[in-house]
């Protein structure tokens, strides 16, 4: 799992491997320059032996060289920083983009059954945490590894014996870091999962804050929130504390290394070995520089554990099974005739509760089909199937004789205009909202559509007319006004097939009557499916389907059904009988 995640991350970095290599190279150069400095300074100190015994010309020369190294190293460091930034943020941008694109390809079945807050948390918070970890990894891991290797080489050149002491002591530090890192991965993952749970709760509560307030649920949701919050605090504390143990533990080991180097070094100098006081100074500074990256790397590793846990959650989302792709040879018919046929269609949301069983229906082009029936009888489900929001379990749905599964989903939906009971509007200006389906629509077309749907008059009264910005969830527009905008955006497109699911349920009757005319001309020559509770709006339909529990129990024109004295007749009379 862990390895797999790393592999996936590397795959994202691969397109920028040139940048990564360059960054490594620059790091190496920086390290070499940085490491030269102690040697030069060590030699400089050897020039300062005592009163009157200072070799000034040589010292000046050495210090100038130190200055050169410093300037070059600083410039390189800055450049590396820029490279690492680019590397991280571009990689993260790709991952976020992929996650988003994948959401667009997930079946509604997945989206309907997963809290959207959790998905948002993955794309936003998890990716963000991952970015932090990755950046730290690039900046500190790279330079850390380079520093360790570089110092080893320089130390070997200075004195192999003391180097041996250092090398022998290193694994201790590594083992400690590794042990802690392994422990903390699980804790970070738990933290990330709990955080996702909390975001889902926040999304639900704050997303419906007005409702919460209306029911005085403030305390109840806050209690619920506190419960998750407390659990999050507990696992955060564990993860943060244990991961922060790495640093002091390795620092402890490092202190030992430093002492050992000082001791061996001092003994070597005293025994008149091949070591000057200046070299010992360089050596001590190396020992310090050598162990410092272990500190950093161990810190980075815990940070990386956190990043990995987050990355795993993002990949989990990216790996969720997408919609079955449209077949290679899928058709893209334009301007369909609008003949729909349902043949032995079976469908259910839960395998153990069949909803639609063996449904057959034939709709000729240009016909108006009304669907009525008690709530929960399967009207909306039927629409889900016609639009291919959900896939049928058996049978076939054909458009103009072609199985809809062999038509590209996009092409199918381009042929269908839909107005739902659920008025969803994107945030944007009124103009953008109306031209949602065809962004290239001209101003006159937009206004014409708005006039046809009788939305023009209320739009004109908005503070900035068509340029008024409407925030998420429709802002202060009433449900009816939102519904008028939903109708307008379909009016603008006018595809060959229309689906109107309670399209006018929130519009007042006088406006509705006026729209009816526009609807009538809109439906002229188009196959339309109309779901409505106001039976008056569907009396003119060519065929009325009466549904119950997923089955069509009656079918016919208004007059035929009334004459048949069946379920429709009962339903129809009930609306005048109070």
């Amino acid at each position, binding site marked *: 799992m862990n390895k797999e995640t790393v592999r996936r991350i590397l795959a994202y970095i691969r397109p920028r491997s040139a940048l990564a290599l360059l960054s490594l190279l620059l790091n190496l150069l920086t390290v070499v320059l940085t490491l030269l400095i102690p040697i030069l300074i060590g030699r400089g100190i050897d020039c300062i032996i005592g009163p009157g015994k200072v070799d000034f010309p040589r010292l000046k020369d050495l210090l100038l060289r130190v200055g050169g190294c410093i300037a070059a190293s600083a410039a390189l460091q800055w450049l590396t920083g820029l490279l690492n930034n680019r590397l991280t943020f571009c990689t993260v941008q790709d991952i976020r983009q992929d996650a988003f694109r994948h959401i667009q390809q997930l079946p509604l079945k997945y989206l309907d059954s997963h809290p959207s807050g959790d998905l948002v948390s993955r794309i936003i918070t998890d990716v963000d945490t991952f970015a932090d970890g990755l950046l730290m990894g690039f900046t500190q891991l790279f330079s850390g590894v380079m520093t360790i290797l570089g110092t080893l080489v320089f130390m070997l050149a200075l004195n192999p014996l003391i180097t041996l002491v250092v090398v022998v002591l290193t694994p201790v530090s590594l083992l400690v870091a590794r042990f802690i890192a392994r422990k903390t991965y699980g804790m970070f993952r738990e933290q990330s999962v709990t955080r996702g749970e909390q975001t889902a709760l926040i999304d639900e509560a704050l997303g419906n804050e007005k409702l919460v307030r209306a029911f005085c649920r403030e305390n109840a949701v806050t209690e619920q929130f506190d419960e998750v919050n407390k659990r999050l605090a507990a696992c955060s504390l564990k993860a943060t504390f244990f991961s922060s143990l790495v640093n002091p533990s390795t620092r402890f080991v490092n202190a030992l290394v430093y002492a050992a180097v000082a001791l061996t070094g001092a003994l070597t100098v005293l025994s008149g070995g091949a070591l000057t006081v200046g070299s010992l100074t360089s050596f001590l500074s190396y020992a310090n520089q050598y162990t410092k990256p272990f500190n950093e790397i161990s810190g980075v590793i815990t940070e990386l554990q956190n990043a990995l846990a987050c990355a795993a959650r993002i990949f989990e989302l990216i790996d969720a099974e997408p919609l079955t792709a449209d077949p290679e040879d899928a058709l893209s018919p334009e301007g369909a005739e609008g003949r729909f046929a349902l043949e032995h269609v079976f469908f259910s949301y839960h395998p153990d509760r069949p909803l639609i069983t063996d449904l057959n229906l034939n709709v000729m082009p240009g016909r108006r089909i009304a669907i009525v029936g008690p709530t929960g009888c399967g009207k909306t489900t039927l629409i889900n199937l016609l639009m291919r929001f959900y896939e049928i379990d058996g049978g076939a749905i054909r458009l103009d004789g072609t199985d809809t599964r062999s038509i590209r989903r996009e092409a199918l939906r381009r042929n269908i205009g839909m107005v739902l009971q659920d008025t969803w509007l994107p945030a944007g200006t009124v103009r953008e909202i109306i031209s949602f389906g065809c962004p290239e629509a001209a101003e006159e077309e937009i206004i014409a559509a708005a006039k046809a749907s009788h939305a023009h008059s209320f739009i004109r009264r908005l503070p900035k007319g068509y340029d008024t910005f409407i925030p998420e969830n429709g802002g202060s527009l009433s449900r009816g006004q939102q519904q008028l905008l939903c109708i307008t955006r379909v009016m603008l497109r006018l595809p060959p097939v229309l689906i109107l699911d309670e399209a006018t349920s929130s519009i007042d009757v006088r406006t*509705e009557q006026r729209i009816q005319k526009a609807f009538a001309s809109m439906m002229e020559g188009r196959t339309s499916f109309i779901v409505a509770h106001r039976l008056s709006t569907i009396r003119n339909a060519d065929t009325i389907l009466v549904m119950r529990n997923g089955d069509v129990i009656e079918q016919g024109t208004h007059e035929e059904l009334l004459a048949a004295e069946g379920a429709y007749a009962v339903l129809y009379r009930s609306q005048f009988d109070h």
Partner: protein
Amino acid sequence: MALLGLAASVTAQYFAARAAIGFSTGLRHDFFAHIQTFSYADLDHFGTSTLITRITGDINQVQTGINLGLRLLLRSPFVVFGALIMASSIDPGSALVFGGVILILFLIVFGIILGTMPLQKKVRGGLDSVTAATRENLSGVRVIRAFVQEENQGARFNRLNRLLTKTQLLTGRLTAAMNPMTFLVLNAGIIILIHNGALKVDNGTLTQGQVIALYNYMGQILVELVKLANLIVTLTKSAACARRVNDILLTSSSQANSEVSLPERPVHLSFEDVSVRYNPTGDPSLEHVSFSAEPGETIGIIGGTGSGKTTLVSLIPRFYDASGGSVKLNGRDIREYSLASLRKAIGIVPQQAVLFRGTIRSNLLWRNPDAPEEELLEALDTAQASEMFDTKGQGLDEPVAQGGANFSGGQRQRLTIARALIGHPSVLILDDSSSALDYATDAALRRSLRALSWKPVTFIVSQRTASVRYADRILVLDDGMCIGQGTHEELLESCQVYREIHEAQQEMPSDKKGGTR
């Protein structure tokens, strides 16, 4: 010594982690609880997305910042100043160099912090818009797919995402300068130190060993500052986040509250010359409306789209406050009662039928967590929702998905009606809440509402005259004005708009020939 250091350090880490997490947990709670005091107008002002990113992402960032900050800031200054003091004990002259270097470093660090702060704020803003785009695509997935807008939406997301990356890179350019600059200054300090040291060794005021010690102290400062520099990104980011969180916490609710509890039933409700203006410059949404209602009465409110029906009923639970006139309960202005007691007395069925994740039972228990089972069943019965148990297998314990996605629109609506009836509210408001019900169910619902034993004042907002015709009083709204008031029969006589609405709904069914095609 090393062991002692280890023990002390571990303890410090523990307390740093504890402090940071304790702080952020408390902050998250306060933030959440604070939002619970916001008025509807405040909520409209901020929008949901930004509140969500602030309570999740931003507070996490603050937590990380505090944890790292505590760990390092509590250590680094000691090391830096310790080194300074040690240096001055060796050679006061060199200590001046130390002092100068530290001062310049401080200037650099603070300069960069100040420079990146506004940029970090921009980065968070960019993250906000990416969040909003993601949320929108999840909530509007059906419409987006129906209109084949996946590509456009994807392009929009990518644009926002790229913009975010660009701001991040810009910020990075500044913070990346931190490390090399501190490195440069410190090493320049070392050069001066050794040069000065050489002069002093030459004239005998210092020894070689002391120069080495000075050099080592400078080296230690370097190590600490490099660590600090690496942290600066995190710290400034946290500071920017903290500011965003604080913005919300400083916003106090725009609605005054009182401590007076509303007395138990029965309630008399009256509107006295009430006007509402959402926007000081815009047209009023409601103008000079007056009426009154006695316990057990039903008030019908009818009118066109945007006529002010919802605005009128929103005043009763004080979702918004009237800008003129007053709404009175039992003779006192409702602003004199506490919000909690006021809202507890009101059962409301909003237009949007939203359920929360849980079970049918957990959703029904909203108004009164202690309501007995019989009351729940009775409410479901009144709301015409009992029959849906025939198709849903687990009765009251049937699970509910987020937003109630596993129920049809009509089922959700009836559950929200039942939810409002629990706890026997004195005022019942149905805001166009039978739009997803078929006529037979709607009629049955109204019959059972009229028969409620505890006689609430009931408001029925609707567009159908059929839904309000048996109300004791009907208000006809048009463009925010009350243009008619009376019973169905009276209004048919006196109010032209009402007659038009009524005839529009009657004419078609009576015309059995099938009308015009």
